[in-house]
């Protein structure tokens, strides 16, 4: 097959090539490939550490959830019962509820990141 380098216009047609199937290590969905990394993850840190981090994070999450529930849950009752319920509903749902949502989210992210930093410090201190 002759070719002239550089003359892109007269390029021969490309042929699609793939390798032969390697049936002996064909890993389908059912047989996942398990690398060493996972084993490492399991052994480098005690489960106690992980569990304590999880508990701390869950506590923060539940605290935020409790505040949200306390904020939102009484509202429908309030709107139904209060004398100017409709007007109140327009104001609260249309505007006032959004800032607290964003503030709660920011507070949670700060706490969660601080927990993670503390955790990293704790673990690294253990190493030394």
């Amino acid at each position, binding site marked *: 097959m002759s070719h002239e380098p550089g003359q892109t216009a007269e390029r021969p047609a490309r042929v699609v090539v*793939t390798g032969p199937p390697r049936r002996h290590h064909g*890993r389908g969905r059912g047989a996942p490939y*398990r690398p060493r990394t996972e084993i*490492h993850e399991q052994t480098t840190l005690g489960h106690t550490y992980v569990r304590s981090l999880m508990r701390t994070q869950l506590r923060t999450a539940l605290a935020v959830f409790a505040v949200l529930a306390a904020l939102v849950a009484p509202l429908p009752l309030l709107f139904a019962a209060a004398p100017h319920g409709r007007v109140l509903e327009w104001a609260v749902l249309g505007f006032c509820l959004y800032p607290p949502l964003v503030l709660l989210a920011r507070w949670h992210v700060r706490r969660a990141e601080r927990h993670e930093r503390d955790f990293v410090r704790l673990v690294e201190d253990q190493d030394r």
Partner: protein
Amino acid sequence: MSTLGALLTGFCAAVPPLLAAGFWLGRRTARPSARPFRRAGLGTPVEHATFQTLHTASLAAPPLRAGLTEETARRASRRLRSLLGTEALCLTDTDRVLVWDGAGSHHRAEIMERLAGPLETGRGEAFRLSCGTPDCSLRWAVVAPLTVDDRVHGALVACAPGESAVLVRAAAEVARWVSVQLELADLDRSRTRLIEAEIRALRAQISPHFVFNSLAVIASFVRTDPERARELLLEFADFTRYSFRRHGDFTTLADELHAIDHYLALVRARFGDRLAVTLQIAPEVLPVTLPFLCLQPLVENAVKHGLEGRGEKCGIAITARDEGAEAVVVIEDDGVGMDPGLLRRILAGEAGPSGGIGLSNVDDRLRQVYGDDYGLVIETARGAGMKVTVRLPKYRPGVHPAAPGTGGLRRG
């Protein structure tokens, strides 16, 4: 590695003919009459017994293929006992009874005492059992050691009410069959180790030529442009640090691209303006996890093909696009291309180490990690450049980047 492979294939090849031969022998002995092959019939009782035996043996095999442990012994023992047709059967390893199937398990301790000899010598033995329990019918036991590569792994003990030559023979045969299964289990294990070793060997093959060329280029700048030389040395350090890192088999596309960047900086120092690289990366696919150093060899290959034997510029395009649950990475050059037949042989591992070794290595690893659906797709012809397409699933169980996936390796 090749010896192990040959051994393995040898075994795989040897077992079916042996079974077939046994089956045929069974038929011959069952039908001594003038018509040896009467295909139309529904089988004689002996034939049926043979089928039954083969079936039982095949059911007992899978557990044993996982090696000799309490769990596998327990799962295999019932089948083995029905194969032998005896009152009690016991499997041991070298220091304790793994399972006792059938009656009379109070003989465990006694059996273990009597096993010391056979386990030491690897030869079978038969002995009387002394029993004080009135309703225990077991009076006699035969021991057949289980050996793999001349090493005794344990023993099979069959117990019966009385002495029986048939049982001695049968126990010896079953023990031999179990030994073969254990041998295969050993091979399975070494094959797994082999694959792991292969992955380790396959990953990160940074070419010595590249190291020498890079150092030569850096050296050439040391006097004329020390600042440039310093920069290149840092690029070189970054790239080699990435290539030689010792942990984890996977990385993220972002990190792999950084490594490619360092690599290209070094290549460009050597070839200057002859190399033009275009990059189109959909940012969505940057967090995708992929086998470590599986794109850099493809880029290296493209550079090599692009610059080979041509005076003028060479263009390389790297694109990564998002396709739902997959990322598609395409590396294309307008270089000399390759003969499709040769490429096919390279990918099949049949050609020598002439170029393209990177391609078959990457192809191997991709198929190993993601399965055969995810091998390289290469479009090429002589003089037509080359286009390599890699598909990477965004998620695959067990595939996680080992390093912090956050930033690049670049200083500052």
